[in-house]
Structures are given as C-alpha cells and as structure tokens.
C-alpha cells in the first residue's frame, strides 16, 4: 500500500489535496474520504486521485504522505465502527456512581427490546460538567444522553433537548415533589428525574433508648429525651450527648458547596424563601432568616457540641465519624442511611429534617437524565428515557433514593430502608426548596457564600459578612 500526496494552498478558502492511491483497497480509500467528509473538511478541500506523483515535489509529498497516512490510520477505527455506531446510544454518567450501576444493569434489556446497544461512558463528577459544557458550546454531541446534577441545568440548558411529552401526565404526577420544577428552565422540562435526595436526621437509636440517658436528660433539661424535631431540641440533645469521647453532632464547615447547602438549609427552616436570589433575581441576604441560620450554627460551635475541626468537615467525613461511633446525630443526605446501617446495624435511626421557626425545610439534591440537543438519535434517546423511567426502582436498590412516589411507597415499610419515610416527609415539607436556577450559581456559591459561612463560623460579624456578600452578588450579576 502506498499513499503519497501534496498540499498547496490556492486561497484562504480552498485547499487541494492530491493523493496518489496506488494499490489501495477501495474500502480504505472510501474510508479516508468518509472520514474527511465527516470531519467537515470537504468545505475546504477537494480531492484529486491520480496515478502519478510529481517528482519535483517528491520530498513534500513524502512529508504529506506521513500526515495523510496518520489521518487515514486514525480514521480506521471510526470507519470500522460506523455501522455499529448507528445502532448505539452513548450515555455519559458519573463513574462508580449509581447512574452507572443502574445503566449497566438495564443495558442488555434495552438492547433486546430495541436493537440499540447502550455505550456507557464514565467520568468523575468534576469531568462530567466540563465535557457536557464543551459539547454544548461546540454544538456537537459526542454523547446522546447524560445523567446530570440539577445544578448544571442553567449552564447546559441550550445544549439539551426538551423532554416535554416523554412522560404521560399520570407518570409525571408520580414524581416526587419539586422534581419537575427543578428540571424546568424557561417553561421547558429538560430532563427526566432519576432520583431525588435531601438531608434528614440520622441518630443513634440505642443512645436515645438508653434508660440512664433518658433520666439524666430529663433532670438536666426538664423534658423527655426524644428524637429532636426543632432547633432548640436539637441543640439541647447535641449538648447532652457531647460526653464520653463522643460529640452530639457536627456541622459542615469545609470550604465549598457542602457548607453553603448546610447553612441554606437552616435558613430555609428560619423562613427564607427564594433562596439567595429573591424575586427579580435580586439577592435577598438582608432577610433575617440568613443571619438567624448563621447564629444558630455559631451557637452549636460555642456549645462545643461539635468536633473542634469543624472547618475541615464535609458530609463524607461527618458520616464516617458517625459510622465509627464518634457522633450521636447528623443532618446528612438520606442515602447515607444504608452505609450507616451496614456499619452500626439497628443502632441507627432516621427522622425527618429538624425545623426552625418556619418549619421543616431542606434543599433537594436531584439528578436528571437528559438528551443532548445535537444528538442525531433524538427519538430512540427519548425512548431510552421512558424505558429508564420504568426502571426507577434500580436507583432505590442501588442508592436508597428514587424519583417516583410509587417506588418510595413500595419501600417505606421495608426495615432495610428506614430512611425512606423520613425523606418523603422532608421533601414534602413546605419550606423545602431548590437552590436558584442561575448560571452564576457555582461562582456565587464557591466565591461568595462559602467564605461568608467560614468567616461567620470563625467569629466575624454575621451582619457585616451578609452585607458584603449581598454587595458582591449584586456586582457579579451586574
């Protein structure tokens, strides 16, 4: 096989590639052409296939032949698999996460039903967003579908297809609260919910049932020891259990989104509505609910009922401490119940999120399955969404959370899933609300609100910090 060619630039818009294709099998020749066509080079290039190369340009041709050969060899895999790709749906999911496990366990059934193979691409959490954002910006979809965090909708919206009509109205009414609103941007539903999640209260059941603890608590606080439902009870109980090498609870002080969510949950319980960005997209940090939430967190710090290194703790670290018997209560994502029960057995109990003056409130953490707008397989991709909606129970079995009310109902009396009822109550609470759907959220969260929470926990004046943050957000939004 011999390939050689030359390139000369005739104008800025036209490039001639002269290729000598001696003894080249026609599929290979076709393959080069197809590849170059598929890579949108035909608008710049024309091909002249000749039997003789020019001797004068021999050196140039040799060089070009290397380039052309490399391009051709690189294209072989794409050519070879082109027919297979037409019957393949590519989905991008977080590697090692529940979405990957559920997608893999159902791929064979989907292929059997439709003839379409599911190609599951995985990426760590940090890479998922970057890949999808690049696909959106370049208007070329490498993937047909993806499973994404609710927070990414505003930034990815222009690259996602509307999935209105994929679910029937009865199927939509089977979704847990706030899920439809969370996936709706500018009136269009952009994703089918896969699961929803929220913080609930996990506690050491054995400590609450201990008779000596009950007596001592009543003597100390004047009321019966019970699983806390309010801020005041939670604070008292946390203080009470801070003894014998154990802390009553912990708060998330780690730099980043985790601590901001923890604070906003307290704020919503204190009565904050339209979190951070109020009506007309104007920041509303002047609302006293935000300062009350910070003050409550500082009270827990002052009481000493949380670990001293609270500024370095996130949900995973706190959950680990709880599993190792160092913490009596934690406000954490509901799915952590399964791993805690695995470690501590029936010593673990689950209850709804605690309530401030405005009642129970939490921030949902749902994920959605989306179709990329530039995918050429829209119909079959939507069929896959419908198929996966029917497999929603898989997420409950894998992660301990799901999106459908009927799936929750099926598991709420299952002793292995004692967190399900608590999660349902929390999600249905009137103060439970989504974070604002704005493209700027990540920036607001990590650059403005995270330092605000950390500075306040370290002792800075909360009113000043809130006022500074308010100004910074106003400046950022212009």
């Amino acid at each position, binding site marked *: 096989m011999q390939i050689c060619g030359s390139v000369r630039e005739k104008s800025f818009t036209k490039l001639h590639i002269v290729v000598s294709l001696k003894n080249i099998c026609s599929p290979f020749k076709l393959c080069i052409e197809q590849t170059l066509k598929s890579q949108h080079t035909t608008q710049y290039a024309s091909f002249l296939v000749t039997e003789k190369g020019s001797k004068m340009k021999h050196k140039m041709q040799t060089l070009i032949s290397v380039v052309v050969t490399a391009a051709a060899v690189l294209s072989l895999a794409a050519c070879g698999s082109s027919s297979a790709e037409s019957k393949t749906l590519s989905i991008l999911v977080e590697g090692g996460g529940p979405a990957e496990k559920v997608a893999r366990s159902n791929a064979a059934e989907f292929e059997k039903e439709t003839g379409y193979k599911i190609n599951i691409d995985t990426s760590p959490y940090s890479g998922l967003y970057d890949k999808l954002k690049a696909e959106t910006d370049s208007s*070329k979809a490498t993937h047909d579908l993806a499973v994404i965090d609710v927070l990414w909708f505003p930034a990815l919206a222009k690259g996602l297809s509307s999935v209105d009509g994929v679910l029937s109205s009865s199927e939509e009414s089977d979704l847990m609260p706030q899920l439809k609103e969370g996936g709706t941007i500018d009136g269009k539903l952009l994703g089918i919910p896969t699961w929803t999640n929220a913080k609930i209260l996990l506690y050491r059941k054995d400590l609450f049932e201990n008779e000596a603890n009950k007596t001592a608590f009543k003597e100390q606080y004047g009321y019966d020891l019970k699983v806390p439902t309010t801020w005041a009870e939670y604070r008292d109980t946390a203080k009470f259990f801070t003894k014998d090498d154990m802390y009553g609870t912990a708060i998330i002080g780690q730099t980043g989104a985790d601590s901001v969510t923890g604070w906003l949950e307290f704020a919503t319980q204190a009565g904050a509505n339209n979190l951070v960005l109020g009506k007309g997209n104007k920041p509303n940090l002047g609302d006293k609910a935000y300062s009350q939430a910070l003050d409550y967190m500082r009270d827990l710090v002052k009481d000493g009922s949380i670990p001293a290194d609270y500024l370095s703790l996130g949900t995973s670290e706190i959950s680990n401490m709880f599993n190792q018997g160092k913490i009596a209560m934690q406000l954490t994502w509901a799915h952590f119940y399964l791993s805690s029960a695995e470690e501590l057995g029936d010593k673990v109990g689950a209850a709804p999120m605690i309530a401030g003056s405005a009642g129970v409130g939490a921030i949902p953490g749902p994920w959605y399955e989306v179709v990329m707008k530039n995918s050429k397989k829209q119909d079959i991709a939507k069929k896959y969404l419908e198929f996966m909606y029917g497999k929603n129970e898989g997420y409950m079995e894998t992660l301990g959370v799901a999106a459908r009310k009927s799936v929750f109902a099926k598991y709420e009396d299952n002793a292995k899933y004692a967190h399900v009822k608590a999660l349902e109550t929390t999600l249905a609470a009137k103060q439970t609300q989504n974070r604002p759907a704005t493209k700027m959220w990540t920036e607001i969260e990590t650059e403005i609100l995270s330092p605000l929470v950390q500075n306040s926990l370290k002792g800075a004046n909360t009113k000043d910090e809130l006022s500074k943050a308010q100004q910074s957000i106003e400046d950022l939004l212009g």
Partner: protein
Amino acid sequence: MFHERFGRNKSDNFWMIAMYVLAGIFLLAFVFPYLYMLFSSFKPSNEVISVNPTFFPERWSLENYRSVFQTSDIGTNFANSFIAALVSTIICLLLGSLASYAISRTAVSRFSNFLLVLVLCLKMIPMSSIVVPIYGLVQQFGFYDYLPVLCIVYAGVNMPFVLWMMISFFKEVPVELDEAAAVDGAGPLKSFIRVILPVVTPSLISTGIFTFLLAWNDFLVALLLTSSDAKTVPVALSEFLTSYNLDLGPMTGAAVLFSFPVIIISFFLQRYLVSGMLAGSVKG
C-alpha cells in the same frame, strides 16, 4: 567540601551528625505520605478511613488489591497509561530532537529565539485553560475516547518541555563535530543521526524519562479526552471518589500499583535523571 573535613575534629563530627539528622527529618517528611498510603493499602477497607488512624495496619489484608481488580478495569487502564506515555514520549523525542538540533544550530537567527520564547510562553499557559478547547476539537473530529489521539495530545503539550531540555544539550555539542561530518560528506540529517545523536543519547534518555512521567501522571487531559476505552489510571483512580461514595481502600491499592513504574524508572535510571536536572547548571 563538608564531607572532606569529616573526622578532623569534634566540631566537624557534630555538624556532620546534625546534618544527617536534619536530612533524615526531611526524608521522613517527604516519604511519610507515601508510606502512609502504602501501609493503608494493606489495611482492611474500613480501617483505611478510621477516625483514629494507625500508621501500620492492625490486621494485614489484601482486600483492597482484590477489590481494585474486581471492581474496575484497572488492567486496561494501566495499558492505556503505559501506551499513551510511551508513544507520546517517542513522538516528542523524535520530533523534539530534530527541532531542537535545528534551532541550536541556527541560534543566531532572531526567528529561532522568537520561536523558543513563544514555545516557552505556550508552556506557561495553565493546562486547565487549554484542555477544554482541545476537548472541543477532539470531539468535533470524532476522536473522543481514542487512545492514539491521547498520545498525540500528550506529545503536543509536552513538546515545549522537550525542546527546551534538548536545546541546552545540543548547544553543548561542539559545532566542529558537524563540520567534521560535513567534510566527510554527510548531509545535515546523516550527521545528526550518525554523529550528534550518539553524543546526546544520555540526555535524550533523561529528557525521555521526564516526558514519560509528565504523561504518566497527567490527570486533566485524560479526564476530558477519555471515558471508557482509553481511560488512564489517574482518571480511574478518581472514580473511587464519587459524589455518593468514598472508596478510599481500593483507591490506596490502585495508587500504590500506579506508583511502581515511576519508582522502578527512578531507581534504575536515576543517574540520567540527575544529569538531566543539572543540565546547564555549570557553564564555561
């Protein structure tokens, strides 16, 4: 030199011992994280994330290593990492040595110097700011998750490093060698291959080692350009930490395995590494 005076008097001995103690402390500080990871990899999975951690395992276990091989495609990931690092290094050395030889022999040209500064400037741009456009290009051309493309991208991003390393080596080779080869009738390419290249082989090896390690340790480029078929070990490692799971036990096992090639390379080729690092440090 300090060591030459060792043993002359008590004061020298004291300083010698103090230096050894200090060196030992520094060594421990550098080696401690690795040793902690190494011993953690032999702990049972739940002991790895203990609230009261111990340095040595209370119970030795191969559970983490078994888990690595059972729950992930670590073998394929290793093969991908090795191929990507090796092929990109070969491309870099092949093209980089030709280019740097040419530039070193035409250093009087203003254009060469400008080119070099430009290349250095390109290397100064943070990888995170160019990797997303690279991803855009790669997926536009339909080569996403394709190992040969990863090799080419690594070769591209590591080329400035190779150029700057190799130019300093080639400049140290006397021009008289080229002239002698020319007198004997060799053209530039022949004199490069037959005369110059053998002289700089040790430098070529040390540059190759560094280039290999740059590609071997890369996370960001592989994170964006690969997903399943071409995934490398650093990306596979990161998937032990998901937004819903913290699987540190198997992660330590995989990290220890990943570090072995680097340790082996460093052990057997350390003299080349040292000569490479000190290149150009003494002039005249």
